[in-house]
């Protein structure tokens, strides 16, 4: 992409990403919060694309869609007021957490601007999908296997925790308890 096209994608995408990110926590409706988070993280995929990380950007777009829609679903299930009809307040320690977040944000921004980062190569594309593939199947194979095992454990553990009776339920008695 040309510099102009990159800039035309990058700046609006970053702006929308941050604004929707803020509004995730400023809305009272669960469906809205989840969809705003989807917008924030999905548009982060566009930022990745503008930063020439093609594979990661596309993957981010793909993964976040599924994950955040599930999140919306759970929000609607577990919130007392999923439709946001009453405008209930869902925050605690509002002032302290907000001021801490602002302080951390300013701190990180200052560090990011003031540090002399090693900018060795400017404007070269990030590794392509083939290079990532060789990385996954080569040097980082063990790490990748651990990630796979983690997912497996998460799946089994998640199902165990979520089923009727929790993790102590007897086999065979599952599903008989009250929901």
């Amino acid at each position, binding site marked *: 992409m040309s510099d102009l096209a*990159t800039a035309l994608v990058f*700046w609006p995408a970053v702006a929308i990403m*941050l604004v929707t*990110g*803020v509004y*995730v*926590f400023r809305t009272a409706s*669960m469906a809205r919060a*989840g969809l705003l*988070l989807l917008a*924030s*993280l999905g548009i982060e995929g566009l*930022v*990745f694309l*503008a*930063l*020439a*990380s093609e594979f*990661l950007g596309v*993957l*981010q777009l793909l*993964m976040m869609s599924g994950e955040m829609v*599930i*999140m919306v679903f*759970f929000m609607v299930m*577990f*919130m007392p007021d999923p439709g946001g009809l009453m405008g209930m307040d*869902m*925050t*605690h*320690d*509002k002032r302290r*957490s*907000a001021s*801490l*977040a602002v302080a*951390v*944000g300013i*701190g*990180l*921004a200052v560090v*990011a*601007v003031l540090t002399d*980062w090693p*900018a060795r190569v400017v404007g070269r594309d990030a*590794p392509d999908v083939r*290079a*990532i593939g060789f*990385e996954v199947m080569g040097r*980082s194979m063990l*790490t990748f296997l651990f990630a796979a095992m983690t997912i497996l454990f*998460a*799946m089994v*553990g*998640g199902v165990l*925790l*979520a089923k009727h009776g*929790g993790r*102590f339920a007897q086999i065979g008695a599952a599903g008989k308890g009250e*929901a």
Partner: protein
Amino acid sequence: MISLPVVLVAAGLMFAIGLYGVLGQTNTIMVMMGVELMLGAAMLNVVGFLRYSWPDATSGAFFVLILMTLMAVEAAVGFALVISAFRHSRTAEIDDMHELKG
């Protein structure tokens, strides 16, 4: 002009937004959303470094893959815990969860 500090500032702000969510929200799922935003900020950082400092570092791209996995795992386990807690105490509000004992 897009440069490494710009990307890092954006990532820092996103991290701060996520932090606000984690600290300030009362609902477990909203807290998880904050965590997702923080992980997203970390990914943006890595992608920025990939673009401007170490374009040949495939392990950086791999790290982003691992982070995406982590987000999925966090969501799965988190939702399972919320279901479990909800079944036990009929709420998903953090302030109402005083004990870890099932």
